[in-house]
């Protein structure tokens, strides 16, 4: 299985390549990708250099153009696709049908991957994308169990990539407007979720309160580590209960299921985290690379090391296990 690794900056890109990524995915510095965060992402020139660096080391480069084209401003996405193709990316990761159709027609040779944002969660959906746009690989939404994936794999005609490590969307990706409901900025339209521009921390007595737009997302007592106010990972009041309504602030880790994923028919394992620093990328990629190449009995120790590194941070198998639902 391939290891697909994130890079938000050229520095992180080189770290990922050096640490053993089979492919690194990244995006341009604008709203054409779903990590349109300030200070992040690549200029055309930086992408060209990154691709050259990756080639020298036998690593592939994928470019995510995985937001939905703003009506009337489609040229921004079309130009991004043209430039990425011209610079020689190994695959484009797309979510918008209009953009997929454009790429399939204009650059029929270009390898097209379906982004998790497209929400292709069943065989009919995946085969539709394969038949209509010639998709070669689909990144599955984080809504499926491993048996679901195995069943799907038997019935589709393209490769499967799944998220195994990093941030976890609780909601079906590409189908969530929670962020724009509170801030006016959404993953689908603006490439941001719970954007920093709308984040505020406020001291209230001994509590630290995190706010997103006009809404309180969490409240941390003095001794508790504060979290970023990602909307679906906040604490809320529901009837008489209060707590994490959608999901605790946990991250995804299913590296202990590598063999099950391989048997299910998965071809590529994806690490989330283009917004994370190069130190994180280097450490996670290096460890997962070793784990992937190790014999199963050696794997446990390597993964324990990773868990040690993410101490204080709880992890979950997410939807890969049925009870999570």
């Amino acid at each position, binding site marked *: 299985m391939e290891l697909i690794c994130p890079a938000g900056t050229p520095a992180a890109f080189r770290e990922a390549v050096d640490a053993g990524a089979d492919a690194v995915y990244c995006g341009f510095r604008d709203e054409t990708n779903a990590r349109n965060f300030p200070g992040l992402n690549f200029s055309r020139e930086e992408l060209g250099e990154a691709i050259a660096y990756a080639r020298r080391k036998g690593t592939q480069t994928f470019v995510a153009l995985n937001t*939905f*084209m*703003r*009506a*009337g401003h*489609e040229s921004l996405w079309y130009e991004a696709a043209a430039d990425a193709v011209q610079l020689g990316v190994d695959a484009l990761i797309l*979510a*918008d*049908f*209009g*953009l997929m*159709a454009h790429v399939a027609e204009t650059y029929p040779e270009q390898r097209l991957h379906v982004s998790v944002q*497209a*929400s*292709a*969660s*069943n*065989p*009919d*959906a995946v085969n*539709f*994308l394969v038949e209509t746009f010639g998709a070669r690989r689909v990144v599955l939404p*984080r*809504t*499926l169990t491993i048996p679901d994936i195995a*069943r799907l794999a038997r019935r589709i005609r393209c490769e499967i990539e799944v998220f195994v490590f990093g941030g976890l969307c609780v*909601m*079906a990706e*590409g*189908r969530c*407007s*929670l962020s*724009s*409901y*509170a801030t*006016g900025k959404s993953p*689908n*339209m603006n490439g941001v979720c719970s954007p920093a521009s709308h984040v505020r921390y406020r001291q209230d007595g001994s509590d630290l*309160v995190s706010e997103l*737009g*006009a*809404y*309180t*997302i*969490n*409240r941390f007592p003095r001794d508790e580590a504060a979290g970023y106010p990602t909307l*679906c990972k*906040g*604490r*809320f*009041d*529901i*009837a008489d*209960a209060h707590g994490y*309504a*959608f999901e605790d602030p946990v991250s995804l880790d299913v590296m202990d299921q590598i063999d099950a994923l391989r048997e299910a028919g998965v071809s590529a394992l994806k690490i989330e985290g283009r917004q994370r620093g190069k130190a994180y990328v280097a450490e996670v990629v290096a460890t997962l690379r070793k784990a992937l190449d190790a014999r199963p009995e050696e794997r446990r120790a390597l993964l324990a090391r990773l868990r040690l590194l993410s101490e204080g941070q709880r992890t979950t198998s997410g*939807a890969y296990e*049925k*009870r999570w*639902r």
Partner: protein
Amino acid sequence: MNAGKPMLTLGPVLYLWEGEKWRDFYFRIADEAPVTHVVIGETVCSKRLHFTDPYLPPVIERLVAAGKRIVFSTLALVTLERESQYVRSLAADSPYPVEANDLSALALLKGEPHWIGPFVNVYNAATARLLARRGASSICLPPELPASSITEIVSQTPGIGFEVLAFGRMPLAISARCAHARAKGHIKDNCQFVCKDDPDGLPVKTLDRQSFLALNGVQTVSFTCQALLADLSDLVGSGVSRFRLSPQDCDMVAVARLYDEVLDGRVDAEDGLARLRQIYPDAPFSNGFHHGQEGAAWIARARNLAHGANA
């Protein structure tokens, strides 16, 4: 395309209502509501299908007898094999047009006239035209879209009808996980259908007691209610041909009559909003998405007029 009078569509009931309540609701819609189209069928959770199945035949019969045009809704999130089967059987056997709410329905409906629901991501005309070429005759645009995008998409996609959500809590997210069941101490596989206890959604408040969202099983909807009464005429001017009223647990016949009167110009938008507040007092109104702002916001018409005057 937009020659006739704009029409009203009743969207599917997104919540889990007791079978008899559901049946009686549609009987009354059939008899009294000035809607031309009724989109019907479970959209949120496949586990709920058996609640309404027994009542579907009499409801369809009554709606058809009343001259309503039926469209069958499909599931917004299809992951399990039985969910795929359900969508396949609808696409193959439905005597009425089917509304696609996920990619599998899209795939299965190719080549026959169908509708596109608000859960399919149509953000631009390139996508709308692609869907139209595959047989879509109507698209209900996602609630997140601002007016500028709606205008652009409609003007650049001739030949099909466009619909906009004009009333109801906005669908914001859907998950494999059931927050509704979990809030009541269950997990999805053993949910005991607790979402039935909240026919208008279960309110989610912030820790500072701000009303924020509402849970509807695996779906999260806005706490606010989209109310585009004041924007109807502009949207009609942009070429939108139908407006969707999404059922809440209130007098939906009165809601439909009110929208019909405002569309006809018999009631002006301001008076209409005051009346709408009486019909559905449970949720504050919002129209922020439409104005390119946060979805929860309410942009008062007066401000728009002031902008217009200064322009």
